[in-house]
């Protein structure tokens, strides 16, 4: 008999397969429609967190301001249709391009900083964006937020004869986009650029002596992760049909980073796990919701102290020790 797999599947294929199966099979266990909504939020957060895997996990750079890019993406979807007459989907793309450009501009000076200084500078950037969104009420509606146009996909499908509930549609759409995002990040990991990013993470001086233009690669990781955050923010605005400056809030940045390091910053599957746990918990345990930020802070501290590599790598090591 021929073996099932001619050669063992790669980590990339395994990750994509697991994600695909989880996304496809989970709805069979949903007790109510509400869980489609929870799933959607998990995927949308998972997308931003996948971007942070590139920045934090591959390149080893920190950002406490990525909610700023999510805010940009969200408001692009809110403002694009109103002010520019753009369809929401095109506004999402415009937001992603603008976020990438802004990340490129901001990242050049900021990424020269290291450690705490980089953390504080990115934090400052995020605070700036959320303040602009809250204060420029003439454009953004201020702290009250503004309505967001319908993506229009459901109508499109309906005219094609396909009827699907709104919550379900968003579940599948967000799941698909997360898969695409995971695929890109996994491609990057074992590519020449991915090796350059991971090498500068471990030793900048050695990376430079093998020819890596450290500033350029840090910047590209920053831009890539900003685009992920922007698309994630756009999707959140589009699925909620509403947006407030809270999306760019410092606490949202912290949530994203917590999700990234909880699962294990180095891997896409770890990112998905972090997003799953920290998005689902407050939704399911509604009693927790009030203390959400306290719980996040606590989890972040505990992970840093006890599982510095993140949940999955630590579990993996534990299991391996048990087996051998």
């Amino acid at each position, binding site marked *: 008999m021929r073996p099932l797999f001619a050669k063992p599947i790669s980590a990339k294929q395994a990750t994509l397969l697991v994600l695909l199966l989880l996304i496809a099979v989970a709805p069979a266990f949903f007790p109510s429609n509400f869980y489609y909504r929870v799933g959607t939020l998990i995927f949308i957060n998972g997308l931003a967190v996948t971007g942070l895997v590139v920045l934090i996990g591959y390149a080893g750079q920190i950002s406490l301001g990525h909610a700023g890019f999510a805010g940009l993406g969200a408001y692009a979807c809110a403002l694009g249709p109103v002010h520019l007459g753009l369809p929401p989907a095109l506004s999402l793309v415009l937001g992603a391009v603008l976020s990438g450009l802004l990340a490129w501009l901001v990242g050049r000076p900021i990424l020269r900083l290291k450690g705490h200084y980089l953390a504080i500078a990115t934090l400052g950037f995020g605070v700036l964006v959320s303040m602009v969104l809250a204060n420029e009420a003439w454009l953004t509606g201020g702290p009250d937020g503004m309505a967001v146009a319908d993506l229009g996909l459901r109508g499109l499908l309906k005219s094609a004869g396909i009827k699907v509930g709104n919550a379900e549609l968003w579940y599948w759409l967000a799941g698909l986009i997360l898969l695409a995002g995971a695929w890109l990040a996994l491609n990057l990991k074992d590519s*020449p650029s991915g090796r350059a990013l991971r090498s500068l993470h471990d030793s900048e001086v050695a990376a430079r002596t093998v020819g890596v233009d450290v500033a350029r690669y840090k910047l590209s990781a920053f831009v890539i992760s900003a685009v992920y955050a922007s698309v994630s923010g756009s999707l959140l605005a589009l699925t909620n049909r509403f947006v407030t400056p809270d999306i760019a809030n410092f606490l949202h940045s912290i949530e994203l980073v917590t999700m990234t390091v909880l699962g294990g910053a180095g891997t896409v599957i770890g990112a998905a796990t972090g997003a799953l746990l920290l998005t689902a918990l407050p939704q399911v345990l509604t009693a927790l919701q009030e203390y959400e930020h306290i719980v996040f802070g606590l989890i972040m501290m505990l992970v840093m102290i006890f599982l510095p590599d993140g949940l999955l790598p630590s579990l993996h090591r534990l299991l391996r020790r048990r087996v051998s």
Partner: protein
Amino acid sequence: MTLLSVEGLGIDFGGVTAVDGVGFTAEPGRIVSVIGPNGAGKTTLFNMISGVYLPHRGRVRLDGEDVTGLAPNRLAERGLSRTFQNLQVFLRMSVLDNVMAGRHLAERGSTLADLLGLPSTRRRSRETERAARALLERVGLERAAEREASALSYGALKRLEIARALAARPRLLLLDEPAAGCNPVETEEIDALIAAIAAEGVAVLLVEHDMKLVMKISHHVVVLDHGEKIAEGAPEAVARDPKVVEAYLGAHAGREGSHALG
């Protein structure tokens, strides 16, 4: 034909002169050893030549071009490659990935193509993997290819750094104590490896405390003491130079002095 020429190189750290007025040349296919007691300034000299430190005085030329103060990655583009005395391995990457990362200049391309996993990207990765596996075989680490670098022994990491440096196909290779911490058998192997690298036409600059190794494979020896060049010449001549003997005996009445003499 001169590949590297160093002229009057010097640097101070907080008013203390670490290296001053050092000059010498290196040619393709030849091994130049830089020796001297601990703290003589050998590593600092390497750091200035490879762009890690910005020299305060003097010039570094490659092929006659003034490359003083160029960034390490720019020097790498011009064919300079190095290893580190205090190990700068990519510890979270696999052994194979470490060597593959060394081929960055040959395999780099557009990051967008890498994100999309285009065929050109995958072809470049395959070529890099083939080259990296051949190099791992050359340094005797082929069976450790898939292991995480942090799991290797000190001596193995030293060889891994040599393989990574070779992956860039350098014209000038700087090796900072490649045999430190290696047992006599490993030292013997590294000795043969360095000679073979030079025989292929690479200009090798070697810092090494193992005098037997230095005397055996060097074509030319430069001696530093307190940051200054105190002697230079053929290995046998340098070993007999009274100034050299005194520097070693003065610094360490024991081990290294007798090596230099013997």
